């Protein structure tokens, strides 16, 4: 039934393209990953709210009454949510494509990010369908919709932004020259190669020869166990003191931490489920109005 209304879908597509194009005009390309992250989710949020705005509002009172006679309110809400979820996943992925085309792409793992968009889109659909059901019954529903839904979407956003930050790596990595200039300050250095040299008197600590992206070599001291990181991009967190780099933590760049990812995706799905259940419980009680 919703598919018949082509103008709705087209306006959302136009919205996505227009906003990404405006951000492209304003920024050309983004150098800073958190900015990319923030802008992406803001555009997505408003595209989603626009998309969901028509869920219940476009049905006239007569249509709603007719629908209520035909089907159980729960199934109406469920079908609207399903449709919204489909719409939002499409919008989200399209937004991602557009955004990476115009502004650039920071994501290291595309499949995981698309999975994030899919779960996030379903979650958003659950929240927005219900808030739209509520706000469509009130006067001033155009302004009411964002007011009601944005606080409810914040938990989703916290998870989505955190996971995106996780996927883009978030930080800008430095080289040894930068670290040497700021000796005593903790920095993250991206290393190309780390070779074992010798053990220090304290048997826990080892000395390594590390070379950074500018192929500048430096001696590095690290206490604890690491595997030899030959020719693997490695991030070293630590600081310079007296010409030696003391590393506090070492991790490889390519790996997205699976445990954290599972935690985030799990939390997101759980949240979606909770919202859906509450929505299904509540909607029959307010459907008659």
């Amino acid at each position, binding site marked *: 039934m919703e598919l018949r209304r082509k103008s709705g879908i087209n306006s959302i597509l136009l919205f996505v393209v227009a906003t990404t194009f405006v951000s492209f005009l304003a920024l050309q390309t983004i150098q800073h990953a958190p900015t990319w992250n923030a802008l992406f989710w803001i555009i997505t949020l408003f595209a989603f709210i626009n998309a969901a705005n028509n869920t219940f509002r476009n049905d006239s009172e007569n249509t709603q009454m007719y629908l209520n006679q035909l089907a159980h309110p729960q199934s109406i809400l469920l079908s609207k949510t399903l449709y919204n979820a489909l719409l939002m996943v499409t919008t989200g992925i399209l937004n991602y494509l557009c955004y990476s085309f115009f502004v650039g792409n920071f994501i290291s793992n595309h499949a995981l990010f698309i999975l994030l968009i899919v779960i996030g889109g379903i979650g958003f659909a659950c929240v927005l369908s219900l808030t739209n059901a509520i706000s469509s019954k009130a006067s001033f529903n155009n302004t009411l919709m964002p007011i009601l839904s944005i606080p409810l979407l914040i938990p989703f956003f916290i998870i989505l932004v955190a996971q995106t930050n996780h996927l883009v790596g978030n930080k800008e990595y430095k080289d040894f020259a930068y670290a040497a200039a700021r000796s005593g300050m903790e920095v993250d250095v991206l290393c190309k190669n780390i070779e074992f040299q010798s053990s220090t008197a304290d048997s826990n600590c080892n000395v390594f020869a590390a070379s950074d992206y500018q192929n500048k070599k430096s001696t590095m001291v690290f206490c604890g166990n690491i595997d030899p990181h030959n020719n693997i991009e490695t991030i070293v967190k630590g600081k310079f003191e007296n010409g030696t780099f003391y590393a506090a933590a070492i991790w490889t760049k390519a790996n997205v931490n699976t445990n954290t990812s599972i935690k985030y995706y799990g939390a997101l799905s759980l949240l979606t489920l909770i919202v859906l259940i509450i929505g299904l419980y509540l909607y029959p009680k307010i459907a008659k*109005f």
Partner: protein
Amino acid sequence: MRKIWWKILCIVFLVFTVIAGFKIKVPALYPTQETLRNLFFHVPMWFGMITMMTVSLVYSLRFLNKKDLKHDIFAQNFAHTGTLFGVLGFITGMLWGKYTWGEWIPEDTKIIGAAVAVLFYFAYFILRSAINDEEKKAHLSAAYNVFAYVMLIIFTVIYPRMHASLHPGNGGNPGFNAYDLDSTMRMVFYPAIIGWILLGVWICTIKIRIELLQRNTI
């Protein structure tokens, strides 16, 4: 409702809280020092807020099941008082934060969580003010209230436990935690919680009675 003993209890507890809260010796811990006395005012606010919101939720659910407009008035007023407690909790927390962490509002998961939680209830009141029809208003806001309460619990109970926080009890904070409270502080802390909650209930009952009287006259 109109029994008097709990009101006397409330007054006694709160007077005790204020007097004892400023008079007793508190352990000199870094970085709180003497500001630790704020414990008797800041923490009970959040206890009070959660209590008020829970009562509000119960009345919203009862309204949704029984369709009695009286329950809606109860739910609304309890949510109102709960929000008031939340805002007061913020103000006392800001004062405390200024003198212990050096910032009015440091970036902290518990603060963000509480801010968002209060935001839900602001949205709830905006929703209420946007609908004119009483029945409709009661139904929709009751539904939203249930939603808001779930998010409130997620934000104030679950979310801060997932992250480190400046607040005592999680993260590597050197201050006190619930187990460091010595016995004299406990003597004041528990009455303070009960006293503030009773005060909240008292405010609610007065507001509810005013509103019920107004409706009857109309």
